[in-house]
């Protein structure tokens, strides 16, 4: 059966969206899915808004960029950065986002207004990944909390187990403690998203 999943990963430069992309990419490649992943390098990484377009499909993929209205999942480490990509979201698409704002600009809008506007989306999961990472004992694991929280939305194309294998493969060179911490964060995010 033909199946595709178009994902926009978003956040602020330095938050670690690329490691989420690397884990999904690793899992997808092992699963023999086609994949394209457009990243942002260079000047914008200096605290600006960053995004990565990640496309998975059972069929060959043409464009590196996701068309507007076609995105199946916005996965964001920052709530306002999730909203930035609304024009790309499909009507049935999911938004899974961290609720903790990253305020490095003087005119950041009131966070409750940001969270309120996210409600225009039918399928939305908002959780405080920063706090969840701290209580999971992995303070730098907010990105893996987020990935865990998105595992359900991804499950029709990627088995959550494959994502865990991906985490193990990607972090293995940093030692087993780092792998365990990231897996724990993933599990914690997965459980939280079910609540």
């Amino acid at each position: 059966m033909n199946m595709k999943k178009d994902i926009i990963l978003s956040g602020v430069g330095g938050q670690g969206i690329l490691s989420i992309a690397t884990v999904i990419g690793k899992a997808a490649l092992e699963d023999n899915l086609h994949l394209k992943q457009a990243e942002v390098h260079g000047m914008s990484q200096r605290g600006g808004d960053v995004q990565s377009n990640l496309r998975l499909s059972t069929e060959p993929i043409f464009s590196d960029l996701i068309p507007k209205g076609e995105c199946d999942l916005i996965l964001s480490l920052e709530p306002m950065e999730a909203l930035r990509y609304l024009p790309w979201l499909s009507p049935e698409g999911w938004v899974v986002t961290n609720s903790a704002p990253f305020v490095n600009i003087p005119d950041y809008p009131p966070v409750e207004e940001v969270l309120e506007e996210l409600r225009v989306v039918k399928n939305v999961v908002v959780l405080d990944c920063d706090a969840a990472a701290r209580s999971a004992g992995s303070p730098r694991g907010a990105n893996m909390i987020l990935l865990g929280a998105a595992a359900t939305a991804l499950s029709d194309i990627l088995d959550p187990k494959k994502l865990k294998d991906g985490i193990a493969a990607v972090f293995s060179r940093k030692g087993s403690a780092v792998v365990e911490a990231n897996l724990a964060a993933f599990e914690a995010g997965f459980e939280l998203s079910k609540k």
Partner: protein
Amino acid sequence: MTEKHLLLGDEALALGALHAGLSGVYAYPGTPSTEITEFIQNHPLTLERGIHSDWCANEKTAMEAALGVSYAGKRALVCMKHVGMNVCADAFVNSAVTGANGGLVIAACDDPSQHSSQNEQDSRFYADFAMMPCFEPSNQQEAYDMTREAFEYSEANHIPVLVRLTTRMAHSRAEVRTIEGGPICQNEMHFPSEDRARFWVTLPGISKVRIKELAEDQYKFRRDSEESADNLLVDGPDHSLGIVTCGIAFNYLMENFPSGCPYPVLKVTRYPFPVALLKKMTASCGTILVVEEGQPLIEERLRGLLYDEFKGNGFVRVKGRLDGTLPRTGELNPDLLRAALGMEPLQVFQAAKTTVPRPPALCQGCGHRDFYTALNNVLRKYEGSRVFGDIGCYTLGYMPPFHAIHSCVEMGASLTMAIGAANSGVWPSVGVIGDSTFTHSGMTGLLDAVNSGADITLCISDNLTTGMTGGQDSAGTGKLEAICEAIGVAPEHIRTIIPLPKNYPEMERVIEEEINYHGVSVVVCRRECIQTAKRHAASAKAK
């Protein structure tokens, strides 16, 4: 044996070069090209075969060194961002005149929409006027395959080949199948053959002969383009429109037609432009849409100069960036193609109301911040002062809260513009340049300043790295004061300060003294980039 990798377009190109038997990569970092060289630097084959991969001082020295490799009969790759082509243009254009001996490939990464650049110039124009073939892969697999092909073609035809990528290809990952087990060993050193050796001396009497040959070669290059599988004409049932796509524009078109495009499509990934294939298309299509990721090079040719005057060129209607079917500037995407083809947009959600822009900024704790604070405090005392900035992270000193620079043009323009402004009566006339930019293109300007006794103050904000592109080695590290002294700046007017808040009083005193000196002075403001400092601390801890 084939192997599957997940690679950036940059990395696919790099691996293609390695598998083609590369002897050396020569480059200066620049987004979106940096990862080509970094991939080669970190690849096990590089160490194993002793492949040269150190960074060069600038794109011109890189291009010239690579030409030397080619002269010696070996294969070389030169990499740069599009504006680097301007820096190496003299060497690049004349490398078509000398021709190549060992395979010589130049990789230029263009940045339409200017994600990290001061303009969006299209490197295909350089290949065109240098009369050099240009390959423009449309996906990561082609980036690998066509780079290998480019080395073969370069050697067989005694001509360097330009490979052009754009940001979305350079920085997007996809699966690439590579071919191991081919002739991937380094080729042997061999000098140019007897009949071609003289072409390496471009005295007019000799190069006239060569340029005639090069002009003749254009027919062969074009025929090769037309016959190559890299350029493909695919028919469709609806001949009311024919579509020409260049490079990755093909993907944006096909994204809208998952089960095949109804119109004939000419997919171009190789130049000189395959005119014979276009003729086949225009035999049945009266309207041609040209889709180019970059400037309208082919579209302009197709229209001709008098197109608007005569309401057409008499044989075909041309649509594209020049008639508003597509935007005149900026990168393409699937949505722009939909609109150009009159298809309904897919978008359902409007842009959110509560989002605000989040521009990049200097990192918290960055030495450039402390330098600008001190400089601003001093210059507040002088009316009419001007600060000429340069290319690097520190260009962000233009942004609030600093508003510290008045210009930024291209690599090295800070101090030379400061000279011109000082000559015109501006005082204080201050240049601000980074350490890597200074050794890239600032040293010759400093010699001008010394020789003319210009009344300028040059501040070198030295973070011991090439910061903006991710922390590559900087050519002048540990040598800046010695370089300035050797160029002729008086030693007592070469001052070094450490940019930290606790040092503001001393920093301000030194900057003020050197501004008040009516001659050339250099203030080196030195503290390691906090990004590389963090990395160094982490790797020291790991050991």
